[in-house]
């Protein structure tokens, strides 16, 4: 009995130290080396912090770029997705309604141009990014409301869009908050 018990107790003690002290410290150390020092990276506009880079925000006005639909209405304290199955009629009706809303606000855009990410909900409900196509089709609307040339706004997108990691891992994307900050600055 003793020959089983002692090694088990020793192992438990070692694992407690390893898992509750050394491992968290190691992870905290790695985080300190990461960009932002382990804290969320904030974005500022005119010297004022307006949000986190990786937590999406809700934009509904026509003069801003819109992000993806959110099941939790961009409530950062209640992250979550719609959890609707692909064949759910209620879900499909929702997607259709979002397509129609988008077309009303963007009369120059044809249905075939709308990328799926702009009418489907993200998993977290806080997706900070949209695809490049999703940004581009919003340009005519924004240019009209802001009275600026479309070319200028396309340039902003080109500046802000992020290439995939190492050139091939993941899609090209644009951060919505960064886009809107840039829009306000120029």
């Amino acid at each position: 009995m003793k020959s089983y018990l002692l090694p088990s107790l020793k192992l438990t003690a070692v694992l407690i130290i390893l898992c509750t002290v050394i491992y968290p410290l190691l992870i905290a150390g790695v985080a300190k080396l990461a960009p932002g020092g382990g804290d969320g990276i904030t974005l500022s506009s005119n010297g004022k912090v307006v949000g986190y880079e990786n937590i999406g925000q809700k934009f509904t006005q026509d003069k801003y770029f819109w992000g993806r639909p959110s099941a939790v209405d961009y409530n950062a304290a209640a992250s979550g997705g719609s959890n609707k199955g692909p064949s759910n009629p209620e879900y499909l009706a929702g997607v259709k309604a979002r397509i129609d809303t988008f077309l009303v606000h963007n009369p120059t855009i044809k249905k075939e141009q709308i990328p799926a990410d702009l009418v489907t909900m993200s998993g977290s409900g806080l997706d900070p990014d949209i695809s490049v196509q999703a940004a581009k089709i919003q340009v005519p609307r924004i240019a009209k409301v802001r009275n600026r040339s479309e070319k200028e706004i396309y340039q902003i997108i080109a500046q802000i869009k992020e290439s995939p990691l190492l050139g091939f891992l993941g899609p090209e994307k644009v951060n919505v908050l960064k886009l809107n900050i840039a829009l306000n600055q120029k």
Partner: protein
Amino acid sequence: MIFALGHYLNRKRMAWAIFGVMTAGMLTFLIPTMITEIHGNPAIQHMHINQASGSMEGKEVRFGVQASAYWNILTTVISTGSVNSMHDSSMPVSGAMEMLGMMTNCFYGGCGAGFLNYYIFIIIAVFISGLMVGRTPEFLGRKIEAKEMKIATIIALLHPLLILAFTALSSWTLVNFPDIAWAVKPSNWLNNPGYHGFSEMLYQYASCSANNGSGFEGLADNNMFWNVTAGLVMIIGRYLPIIGPVAIAGILARKKYIPESAGTLKTDTGTFALMTYAVIMILAALAFFPALALGPLAEYFSLH
């Protein structure tokens, strides 16, 4: 885990054979998932929007469908339970593959459960192939006999039994007592109607039994019924499969070592690896096919 085993047993070839089967099994689930997710949702295709980026519901732009599909399968195969997209919103075929990842429950061995179950399948494969070619079934120089086979079979069948019996119980409750006076009425459990609702319940028990923890999160599972039944599945489905293999190991260890001879069935060859793969797939597929046909497969055909 597997390579550590190969190192201690001094059978590196066997470790590679096992790793190969596990990778083949993982790819069997990964490839269909990747294809369906990239193709996107046919129901959304009908609305004539641009689905070049794939099925984006429940996924993040920065991961895209490829990385999401990849992790959907890896997480269910190695039983970590973490997700980077919402499994409930993945396409029917992907949903089936995610569930199969947990239903086979033996690839790689994330939280210690994988190799235990794989070992059970090896015992069964050794026994079956031994019978097929007329050699005495031996593994690591020890004879596999009726007693070990009994334990192995019980453990291999326990997993499907738990998942299917409890899914049946919850479906029965839902159909017969939709308005019973519980905190959350059974009629409010499901977030999706029809076949997908059934998949939600099936996934929940598969996840509980297979040491996973991810879910088709549309299911309203934080209430008495689900906490109690899922808890039972967890206790039985996670502890018995540890006792079984350890018992077999104990029995085998007491047996006399038989040196390898020309009559020994080799367990580190490609043929045997293929045999193990077949045993796993046939057992998992046969046991779960009817349930999968009611859930994800029915949904697939209703979408196409």
